[in-house]
Structure formats: structure tokens, C-alpha cells
């Protein structure tokens, strides 16, 4: 069997290694992100959460996942 190639991306400032053919939905699922409580940016552009399964990730992509925390 052919070995799956890995690529490196950045999620919330941390470098992660993912399978080359993964889409955004899969990556978020693996991180157990509760989609209804977050917003997602890919390379500083806001992503429509309904379309994440169609978004392919590339080497050096930067993902930001944010949510609400306590603040004044």
C-alpha cells in the first residue's frame, strides 16, 4: 500500500501534521471542535461552516478557530 503523504499546517498557532488529501471538515472533526460554538478562519478569511467539507487544505495553511470566553 502506498504511504499517505503528510503536509504541515498551522492551527491556532500550533503546527499540525495532516494527511495531504484531508479536507477542513475532517481536520475539525479529529480535533472534536463543536462547530456550532466556533468561527473558523482559513488564511485570514472567514469560512462558511456549511462548506467545510468542500475545502481542501494545502501546505502551510493557517487555520484559526475561535469561540467565546469570559470577558468584560
Amino acid at each position, binding site marked *: 500500500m502506498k504511504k499517505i503523504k503528510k503536509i504541515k499546517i498551522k492551527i491556532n498557532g500550533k503546527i499540525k501534521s495532516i494527511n495531504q488529501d484531508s479536507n477542513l471538515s475532517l481536520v475539525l472533526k479529529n480535533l472534536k471542535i463543536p462547530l456550532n*460554538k466556533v468561527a473558523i478562519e482559513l488564511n485570514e478569511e472567514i469560512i462558511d461552516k456549511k462548506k467545510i467539507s468542500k475545502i481542501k487544505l494545502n501546505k502551510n495553511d493557517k487555520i484559526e478557530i475561535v469561540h467565546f470566553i469570559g*470577558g468584560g
Partner: protein
Amino acid sequence: MVNLKKDSLIIANKKFNSRLIVGTGKYKSMSECAKAIKLSGAEIVTVAVRRVNISDKNKPLLMDYIDPKKITYLPNTAGCFNSKEALRTLRLAREIGGWKLVKLEVLGDKKNLFPDMIETLKSTEVLAKEGFKVMVYCNDDPLMAKRLENSGADAIMPLAAPIGSGLGIQNKINIQIIRKQTKLPLIIDAGLGQASDAAIAMELGCDGVLVNTAIAKAKKPFEMALAFKNAVIAGRQSFKSGRIDKILMGNPSSPSKGII
């Protein structure tokens, strides 16, 4: 009996019964925060937008403690020092679940935490055009408050004193001038230290107050939450009741006729 129930606070066409807005930061725990909010009677709470902790997936989430269906979340831009950062933060906040009512706060100095009013004005204009309902943290400057109003702000929120300082309202005259010139909701945001500060704000004619540190960092946050709730109601009631004129000399409360 004065019916305060009919005296609602209206922000961007939404009605609220409580005139106390509270922050959700600086509490010892999420459960302490949730209980304090309940006791305060607040219907709007400010929240910050931050990165999800992807390495600790079991970390408690604010939304699990404070139900956004019951309490209005007011996303803020705390920690933003320019318009670009503030816009990015609020666009993300809207994306989390359709939040349009937001608190804009663009800071200009890391020590005194005063707002950068030039960046704040720029951001207000853009946000209003994008359909946001913007409640704006600002200086207690009547001219800037007017400009914000003209830029599409939905509420003017001047500071009482620096954020977290607990100094209380430092410039009552400016607050009164802003009150006179605007029909927009006027909410004192930042710098209150104790419940009486909130009552004073309400007596000056403000529509509400926003408090975080004074409750969260009080020795007894639950009791202080209740104290602020009562102070806001008392202050509002006092304002609506029409205070007496001030005079220099004494005026006896008992009749001077019939003294034996």
C-alpha cells in the same frame, strides 16, 4: 407604586428589562460567573473572542454555563489596538452564531486602557455599514460621542474611569452633557467600583451601566452582583422621580407654626 417593568431599556430595537450589563471575565470559575450573572439580573453579558484550546478538549465552554438563548451575548473586541483587529474579531464573532449586537472597544494605550477614538470612529462606520449593531466604548468626550452617533453607533458607552480601576465616575459634567445631546442609549462602561457608583450613573440619566471587575473581583461577588442590581434599580427610580432643588441653607422639615 412605580411600575418599572414598563421602563425597558431599548437597544437596536431590542427590549431589555434589566439596565445592568455585566462582563463575564475575571471570575474564579465559570460556575461562579454564571451564578453572579443570575443574581445580577442582567440580560446582556459581554464576552471575548479567543482561540479555542485545541490541546485541551475537555476545557469547559462558556456557552455550557451561560445559555446564549436566554442571555444576550455581547461579543467585545477587548485586546484590539486598531480598527483592523477589531473588525476581524467582530466578523468572527458574528460567524459563531449570527451575533450582530456587539461591543466595540479599540484601546490606545496598554497601561491606562483608554480608547483610541480615531480607530474607534473608523471601525464604527465600517461595522454599521456591514449591518452590525454597535455599542461603542468611548471616552467621556461629548464631541467624540456626537461623532460616534453620526457614524452609526447604536449605543454610546463612555468610561467612568479606566477599565478595572474601580474609581467611579470621574467626570459627571461630561456625562450629563452627553446625556443632554443624545437620544441613543447611554451606558456607563468601565471604571465603576461599588454599587453606589452605578446608582450615580443612573441618577445622571444614563440608560444603563456595564460592570465586570467590581462584581467579579469583590470579596463576595454574589452579594455584590445583587448590590449592583439594586443600585441600578434605585438609581433609575431616583432619576425618574425628579430630585429636589439644591439650596445652600437649611429648610426645616417640621412646620415652624405651633411650636410650644
